[in-house]
């Protein structure tokens, strides 16, 4: 479906890059034999989506920007030696990793160990096939794009597990099993939160969701704040980022699943960690924050520029939580997923389904009622988060953040029981 924005059909119009690619493909179709156009389309899509948009973002925003931002949070400069303001740091990192010696333990399973980084890179690249960068700039506009994303996000788990198992190291295995348990626990709130969005927009296709948000002039983040928060937490847990990064931090004590990897194999894990984080950010932006639309600005500014800036802003949220929060223990993580996030996601689904039925039957799908639902949902989200937490025993007023103060040295000073409760 071709949407006419201010962007024209000329091949040199940069605001809609699909003009360029369709010009190239039409030209190829005339001169090449029958099936080559498919291969060329795939190549152009890969070059455009991954090499032009994603890889520089990954290197400069992901590697360099993250380190400089975390440095600034910690009141220090980030890397600033290599190149002006440290701009060449990712290249220096890549060169270092390429020239490092790749050790393989003798008793490790070589084939699986070599395959695991490859399998980890695959989903991070595949994910970008369904992300819309603009009205016609989507590589594969399949009608089940959301489920495709969920399917892709269950593959890195397997790759991490293969990595941990192939080292033939008891501690790596230990770490890898924990990662897998955590990842599958957090997939369920992830799916449920996205289901809420699907119920409202009646479609599984990402491009359609962006059009829905454009048509109703409201971002799905405002209509479903709870789903967005659950998505954010669940996806950070899937990506093994702090506060849920027991994968990397298991190496405090037990070596994580990345122990025996050195050199570029580790570099692939690290780089694709960032790539996958950017992909999850891109997905979150498309579903919850309006994708490549910005309430009409996309008719002047190229849509892909808006999209990339929004992805960087979402990724900034990841960086921010990483720099600030401590890490949770594995059993606390699992209980958080099952006892807190899952019921919240179910409640969210319930509320959204009720609203959707109200909307179509009682209000006939009129636009202004969406805003009403948005306000109601924000209130519900706040109430649910606090209410469910209190139900589970969260009593912030009971924690003492200041110690007791005494003036005389003596013996044991017993704790006085708080009024109204025996302790």
């Amino acid at each position, binding site marked *: 479906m071709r949407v006419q924005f201010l962007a024209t059909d000329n091949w040199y119009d940069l605001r809609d890059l699909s003009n360029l690619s369709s010009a190239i493909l039409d030209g190829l179709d005339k001169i090449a034999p029958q*099936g080559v156009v498919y291969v060329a389309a795939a190549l152009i899509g890969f070059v455009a989506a991954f090499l032009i948009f994603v890889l520089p973002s990954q290197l400069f925003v992901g590697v360099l920007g993250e380190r400089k931002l975390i440095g600034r949070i910690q009141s220090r400069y980030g890397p600033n030696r290599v190149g002006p303001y440290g701009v060449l740091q990712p290249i220096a990192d890549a060169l270092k990793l390429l020239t490092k010696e790749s050790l393989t333990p003798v008793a490790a399973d070589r084939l*699986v160990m070599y395959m695991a980084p490859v399998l980890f890179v695959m989903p991070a690249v595949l994910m970008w096939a369904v992300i819309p960068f603009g009205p016609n700039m989507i590589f594969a506009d399949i009608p089940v794009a959301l*489920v495709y994303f969920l399917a892709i996000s*269950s593959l890195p*788990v*397997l790759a991490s597990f293969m990595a941990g198992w192939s080292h033939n190291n008891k501690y790596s295995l230990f770490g890898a099993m924990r990662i897998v348990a955590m990842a599958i626990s957090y*997939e369920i709130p992830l799916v449920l939160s996205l289901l809420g969005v699907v119920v409202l927009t009646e479609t599984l296709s990402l491009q359609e969701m962006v059009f829905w948000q454009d048509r109703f002039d409201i971002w799905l983040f405002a209509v479903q704040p709870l789903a967005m928060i659950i998505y954010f937490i669940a996806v950070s847990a899937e990506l093994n980022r702090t506060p849920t990064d027991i994968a990397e931090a298991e190496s405090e004590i037990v070596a994580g699943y990345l122990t025996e990897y050195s050199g570029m194999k580790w570099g692939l894990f690290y780089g694709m960690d960032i790539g996958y984080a950017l992909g999850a950010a891109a997905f979150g932006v498309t579903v919850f924050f309006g994708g490549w639309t910005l309430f009409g600005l996309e008719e002047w500014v190229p849509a892909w520029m808006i999209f990339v800036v929004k992805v960087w802003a979402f990724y900034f949220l990841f960086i921010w939580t990483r720099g600030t929060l401590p890490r949770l223990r594995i059993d606390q993580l699992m209980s958080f997923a099952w006892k807190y996030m899952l019921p919240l996601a179910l409640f969210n689904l319930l509320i959204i389904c009720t609203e959707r039925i109200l909307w179509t039957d009682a209000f006939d799908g009129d636009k202004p009622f969406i805003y009403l639902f948005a306000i109601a949902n924000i209130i519900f989200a706040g109430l649910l988060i606090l209410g469910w937490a209190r139900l589970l025993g969260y009593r912030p007023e009971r924690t003492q953040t200041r110690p007791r103060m005494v003036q005389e040295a003596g013996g044991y000073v017993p704790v006085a029981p708080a009024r109204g409760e025996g302790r």
Partner: protein
Amino acid sequence: MEGVGVTIAFWVLAALTLIAAGGVMVSRNLLHAVLFLIVTFIGIAGFFVLLSAAFLAMAQIIIYVGAIAVLILFAILLTPRAGRGNSETKFALPATLLAISLAAVFLFVIHDTDWEVVQEDPSLAANQLGEALVGTWVVPFEIASVLLTAALVGAIMLVRTPEEEAEDALA
């Protein structure tokens, strides 16, 4: 689905699936067998896409690769002696004969059946699937969910330590 690309995709996927399935049978290491099984699942998901059932393909990957394969991996890892290789067994020859006869039966059935060829693209959309599940087939759907809950509760009961059981025992 028609076209050159589809034919090429079909043959590539068929080769991939069959080789992976063969790998499952043949590999000595149990974990390698599971990894080959995962490749088989992905191949089958590809077949679903070729049959215009994109949603089923994704569901296949999510459920089989993302959950069931992980389950099998956990089961292998938590069982102490499961890592030992598939050794020779005296059932090899009878099993091969049985497999060949089963394959022969299937092939004859497939060859002799009058298959109904669908002309138009069925294109199963997700909402049709959803409507069918909670409309026509709601009873099996609910029974399946009850069964899964029972399995979940049973699994939790099985792994309780004696102390936990003593805690909840009727005093």
